């Protein structure tokens, strides 16, 4: 490594790390515990956890089969599908929220029939939060699992078939265990992405206390809202930082297992 490259490297690190330091320094540590256990904060925290877990479950149930389909087939159609699957990654979440609104909103492409036939209205409900989070989080899971599936290859599955195992047995006993490390890191990535989701949620689900106000929305409300104090926002932010660090450690913890 050329020596002079260390300077931009350190600037890059400082750029990523110093904001967190500023947050920690600025925090009112005596008031933080009280801010975190306030009813508004607890409500946002639990809503975030519930919706995050639900969105992750949604990603697993449909994302793993989707990853399998993408990994085990190769055709122009599949390549096109793969490109579309990664679209939410590069799309601004706000755009995602608007798109969801125009699909599932009261007058949306599908939403109008949900309202008309079943009396179901999705926008600005907790379900909308889960869908918005799932929309932005699923690509992380699909990409991670698809990569693991491609690395694992089909040779073990072939051997399992010659031993008399049907497709479902092969999937359950060979395919899934082999991609477990990728599945685990994909799950953690999806969950952390879901917990931090703001843009799509704000547009598609709104900011209703106790119904759709998750942690990021609560922080935004506390920071910008009328008469609320910034200390609560900072305390909640620190809580999210801690949650993120826990997840990072979890992902790292999986890495050594992946080599075995």
């Amino acid at each position, binding site marked *: 490594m050329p020596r002079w490259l260390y300077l931009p490297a350190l600037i890059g690190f400082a750029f990523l790390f110093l904001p967190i330091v500023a947050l920690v320094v600025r925090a009112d540590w005596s008031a933080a515990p009280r801010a975190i256990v306030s009813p508004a904060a607890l409500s946002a925290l639990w809503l975030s956890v519930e919706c995050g877990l639900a969105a992750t479950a949604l990603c697993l149930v449909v994302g793993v089969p989707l990853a399998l389909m993408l990994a085990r087939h190769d055709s122009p159609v599949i390549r096109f599908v793969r490109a579309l699957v990664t679209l939410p990654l590069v799309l601004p979440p706000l755009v995602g929220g608007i798109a969801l609104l125009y699909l599932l909103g009261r007058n949306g492409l599908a939403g109008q029939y949900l309202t008309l036939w079943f009396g179901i209205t999705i926008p600005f409900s907790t379900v909308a939060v889960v869908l918005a989070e799932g929309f932005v989080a699923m690509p992380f899971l699909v990409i991670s699992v698809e990569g693991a599936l491609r690395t694992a290859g089909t*040779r*073990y599955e*072939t*051997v*399992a*078939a*010659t*031993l*008399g*195992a*049907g*497709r479902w*047995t092969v999937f359950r*006993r*060979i395919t899934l*265990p*082999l991609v*477990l490390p990728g599945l685990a890191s994909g799950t953690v990535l999806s969950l952390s992405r879901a917990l931090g989701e703001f843009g799509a949620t704000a547009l598609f689900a709104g900011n209703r206390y106790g119904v759709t106000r998750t942690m990021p929305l609560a922080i935004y409300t506390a920071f910008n809202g009328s008469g609320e104090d910034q200390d609560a926002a900072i305390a909640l932010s620190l809580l999210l930082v801690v949650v993120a660090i826990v997840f990072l450690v979890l992902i790292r913890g999986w890495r050594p297992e992946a080599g*075995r």
Partner: protein
Amino acid sequence: MSAEYDGYDDVPVRGPFGRLSARVALRLGAFDLDVAVAAEPGEVVAVLGPNGAGKSTLLGVLAGLLRPDSGEIRLGERVLGGDGAFVSPEQRRVGLMGQDPLLFPHLTAVENIAFGPRSQGVAKARARAAAQDWLRRLALDEFADRKPAELSGGQRQRVALARALAAKPELLLLDEPLGALDAQTAPEIRHVLRTHIRAAGITTVLVTHDVLDAATLSDRVVVLDHGRVVETGPTAEVLAAPRSEFTAALAGLNIVAGVALTAAKPGESVAIAPVGLAPARPVSVVGQPGPGQPGGVTVSGFAADDLAAGSPATAVFPPSAVAVYLGPMGAGSPRNLWPATITALQPGPSAIRVRALLGAALGTAAGEDSVIPDLPGHGAGAVVSADLTAASVAELHLEPGMRVHLAVKATEVRVHAH
């Protein structure tokens, strides 16, 4: 034997094993496979050929991993594939073991072996007991709970064999099973394969590019080149008297099938009596065949495997190790001195290959006008090749029909169990 292999009684032993007959045509890009192979019940058929000959493609078709464009694959009463029929790999009961053992990395040795029975609906405890049985049979008991990453290459390959057999296939496919093993481990696994495949009595197709595998493991050989069968027949015949130059180049070794006269451990000296020839005592004084058995032939060498007295054995040695003598000689060091009759001279790129039929009873005295046809089946397994320089051949005036003596140092001869 079959009773011993009934490891779990709620799955019937698959056997008697059926006959395999397959006609397969398949085009994969520029490659085109069009072959017919057959294996009698319990027979081990070796498919020999260079890389790209279509050996692995053929196995893929037999295993149901590739669909042939046309043809028919029959195993016993069942049609497994071909025109209008296709049985999926999991329904075929065709076991596959390759160069890479491909043990499931997340399962222990015993779980790997139990996988087949489990997948076929055998209860967990019973499948595990059967797997333990297999581990014992392959001397792997102590490794039952190890993951594949904690096993050596040879141990992994043994577990892979146990896993394939524990699934009770009706046909076993071996794809270069020794290909990835080092020189120390390969003979051990070759021995394990021979022992357990014979014990199970299962119809087997063995793909290999190593003529030694074919010589020591198989009953019959099918030689493939460019997707076509170029030669087929009993192993000893094809390898000892290749009809095509291609097979001769592939074989490149003298292979004499016989019976071990004494028991021997690997590395010990041992003698075998070739099939169809009267044995002589090992020649200690050169030029003196054993008393009472004039013209007898005994092949002395060093054991590559454990050999029991009277067990089938195969002596293997290179044509370059064979010297040709015209008349009686004085004492000399080579342990092997055999009377033989020259059947053919084949010019090669660097030497002339002299082919001779062992045994004095056949053939005529030197100088007499008689040509012994180099027919397969005629004294099969007792044709020996010697690579000589053109100058030697000219100087000795060697020609078909001449009676000569062949000398080979015992150190050049490896004796394998068969």
